[in-house]
């Protein structure tokens, strides 16, 4: 079944700020096998000119889709998660993410298109501080296989 195009443009905000912790960054760096001390040691990060440990570039995936779940899981949207694969991912960064950041993410279903038998959904996530300072933007394309037939 085709996805409900009425959802294009709908925006969802994360219910609570995401608090970036040193431990979570360390856990994420260990999971991707990256031994860079800048991800685990505040002194190493400060020696490199950063205020605290830095998050790896793909770290925002941990929280960037939290708000979007409300829309993507809405039965009216019509998404069959069993058929979903991750098609594309892009991040643009206004600044690095640091331990201690409190971040908000507004996710917008920005595009739905059919390619062959598949549905492509683009979710844009605008990540800011509590004061509204832009931090990064996530562009997430999920593919529902067979969804367009």
């Amino acid at each position, binding site marked *: 079944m085709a996805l409900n195009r009425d959802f294009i443009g709908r925006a969802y905000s994360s219910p609570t700020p995401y608090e970036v912790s040193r431990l979570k960054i360390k856990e994420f760096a260990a999971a991707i096998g990256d031994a860079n001390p800048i991800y685990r040691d505040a002194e190493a990060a400060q020696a490199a*000119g950063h205020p605290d440990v830095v998050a790896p570039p793909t770290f925002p995936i941990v929280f960037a889709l939290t708000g979007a779940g409300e829309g993507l899981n809405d039965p009216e949207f019509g998404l069959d998660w069993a058929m979903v694969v991750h*098609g594309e991912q892009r991040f643009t960064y206004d600044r690095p993410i640091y331990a201690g950041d409190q971040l908000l993410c507004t996710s917008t279903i920005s595009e739905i298109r059919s390619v062959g038998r598949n549905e492509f959904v683009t979710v844009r996530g605008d990540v800011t501080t509590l004061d509204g300072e832009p931090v990064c933007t996530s562009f997430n394309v999920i593919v529902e296989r067979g969804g367009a037939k």
Partner: protein
Amino acid sequence: MGATIKYDEVEQGQELPPAEYRVQRVNLVMYAGASGDFNPIHWNERFATSVGLPDVIAHGMYTMAQGGRYVTDWAGDPGAVVDYGVRFSSMVVVPDDDTGATITVSGLIEEKLPDKRVIVVLTAKSGDARVLSKARAVVQLA
């Protein structure tokens, strides 16, 4: 803070040396926990094969993370990456053995941009399969 590679010392068309990254089942279990993506296709062979996959496959984001690691290791600072995007073009199949799979990443300076930025295009392969396509990072050099 900032890259250790100098803009004036790189050339358009320059190739960056390849790096190999091992991925075993334990890495996927760790990545599931760290990222919150517990889709069983990434850790449960019984489930993966029941939905038509050859075996457990790596999270696409795990592969993207290896490309990110390649770029940050080259540039010398994770804060130097200002834009990073990929398309997931093929699966990384991770067998339950002592070897796992290998992701080989290499890079090319595709373009030198103003303001000491460069576009690095990445190639990521596992076996004969290109597992990322349209993989590019914009990096702020010194």
